[in-house]
């Protein structure tokens, strides 16, 4: 049986909806926030700055700043059956297209983040990072929408 959303046990859908909702709020909403605000005519420097803010300070609040990769590390176990979603509920979505997209693009983001930190990210890397961030945001939205639809 494929490990997709469609095969998650009905009793797990509640906790999973919460988990994915928080993922969308904490990661999907902010991972390409500044990049999205940039116009097409933005300079390379502005794009790089926006990407740094999006990927390296994805969440920013009174408890400090968190990179996209660390936010993802917090949520990933709950999506691949390795973390408790609450009350002992577990869900494994390893074969789900949205999760595959998330894993793939978060891996790119991890590489791009390292390059940004090391100040070695060229234009091409910045463009790749921005694309991956957009796809992560899209996957978070899609997953949240599907989980809600299944739970409804």
């Amino acid at each position, binding site marked *: 049986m494929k490990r997709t959303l469609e095969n998650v046990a009905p009793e797990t859908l509640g906790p999973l909806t919460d988990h994915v909702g928080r993922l969308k709020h904490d990661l999907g909403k902010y991972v390409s926030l500044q990049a999205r605000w940039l116009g097409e005519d933005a300079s390379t420097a502005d794009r790089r700055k926006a990407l740094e803010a999006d990927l390296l300070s994805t969440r*920013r609040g009174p408890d400090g700043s968190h990179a996209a990769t660390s936010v993802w590390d917090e949520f990933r176990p709950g999506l691949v059956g390795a973390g408790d979603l609450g009350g002992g509920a577990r869900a494994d979505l390893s074969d789900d297209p949205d999760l595959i997209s998330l894993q793939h693009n978060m891996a790119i983001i991890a590489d791009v983040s390292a390059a940004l930190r090391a100040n070695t990210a060229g234009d091409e890397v910045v463009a790749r990072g921005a694309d991956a961030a957009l796809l992560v945001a899209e996957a978070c*939205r899609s997953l949240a929408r599907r989980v809600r639809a299944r739970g409804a």
Partner: protein
Amino acid sequence: MMADILIVDDQDRYAELCRKAIPEHRYRGPARSWKEASETLSRARGRIDLVLLDVHFDIPVEQLIGFRDGLSDRELNNLKRRQGLHILEVLRGRYPDLPVVLMTSREELEIEQSAEDFNAEEYTYFLDDDFVDARTLKGQIAGILAARQGRDSDGPVFWGRSLAMRRIRQRLSILARGRLPVVLLGPTGSGKSLLARHFIHARSGRPGRFVAVDLSTVPTDLMASHLFGSVKGAYTGSISDRTGAFEAADNGTLFLDEVGNLSLDAQKMLLSVLQEGTITRLGDLKERAVDVKLVVATNENLAKAVTEGTFRADLYMRLNPATSISLPSLGDRALDLDKLLQFCLKQALQRPYLRGLVDDYRQVHRLSAGPVQVHPRGPVPAAEPGVLVLLFPERSMRLFRSYGWPGNLREFSMVAENAVLFALAEMSEVTGGDRTDVIQVRPKLIRDLLRAAPSSESTQSGDGLSFSVRLSASDSLNKVSVDCERQYFVALYLRERGDFGAMARVLLGDDEHARKVQLRFNQLGLKVRELKQRLN
């Protein structure tokens, strides 16, 4: 236009982006919880123009609002995910028409249901955070602020900033769209007719006409035909078919002012219209369907009229008294007077005769064309090319505030307009001076105008007696004195149960002078027989 925007969000990112991408506004926050938001709103004292509100708040449980005792982890997470909606609910209660932009995608929440629950759909907007960009947000904020400015200044309805008026506005905007009748209560001059025409009808979405009938001016025996129409020969003098107000207002709004004056016959017919949605012209058998939004107004206590039998109980209930709107008197809106003054004069200055006077004044003083600004209270502003300032010093404003305004908004707008008229006339005769661009409306002028107001009431009391004295500017001192004496005599007569001896003791220190008191009583034109009836 620069606006004050409060951001309520558990994260910094939106606040940072707004400051960076839309720097033309002033931002406060982010407030990370309702507590922080309410503190900021209290400090701002009504100066916040817009709230940007996140929905999902990942904050410590103790900072959440909403019922949280005994909730499971999952339920607490749900509370966090919808925390913005709980904040919206409290915000709506305290700041009913403050525009709030909810930063969430529509599909994320059962938005329509939530908005309805919070009675907030009119001032709540959604920012689809999935796809938002700077231009979208900028455009949305500009649109909301423009619409709000338009609402605050549109038409002749003055809302002001008081919470009571904001609540009334919110309720009326809901009632305007529905099918139920609207009952407006309030003292004369408080703006019932303006509200009916310019707010309720304007927002009703009805394509038909607005028809107003002042029932205090319609003779009782003509009331039914006036409202419901008649056919030729229905009554003596009915020489042709006549369309009534209900038919004229079909698909529109019918405003019945002073509804307490409705004759019992007309009340019965009105009840039938409300129940059946049809009218029958007097003398006709044919029923005609009408679809009318009914707004009624009165200064009377209709519930009391029902108990006294002058107003039908079943009609009263049909008029939807539970949702009646009570308009405050102007005396209860003292905080709004500065704004109201600006509002009234802005309208008055659009009238040709006042505009002509302003133009004449500019010509005399060789001032260039430009706007007129109304400044309630000082200080004298710096001169600007073309700007003519109407300055109401603090002492003038104090007179406005201390006056009771028995004629409410109507009286206020007349006095304000006259003040400008006379101030312009006074200043036009003066040439030279340092600041001819500043027209001061002096306290003396205001005092004179208020003295000349159609009615000013004062109450005198002493020894347990109280009565009101109605004064008019044209009254001689003798008339005022006699009026006052007459009322004092009446009050004393009633208190002493018609005992002239007791009255003489009070007035002259000796009850032996009862005859003198009775003579004066007669001189004042007071009738013992009438007063005895009041004693009985």
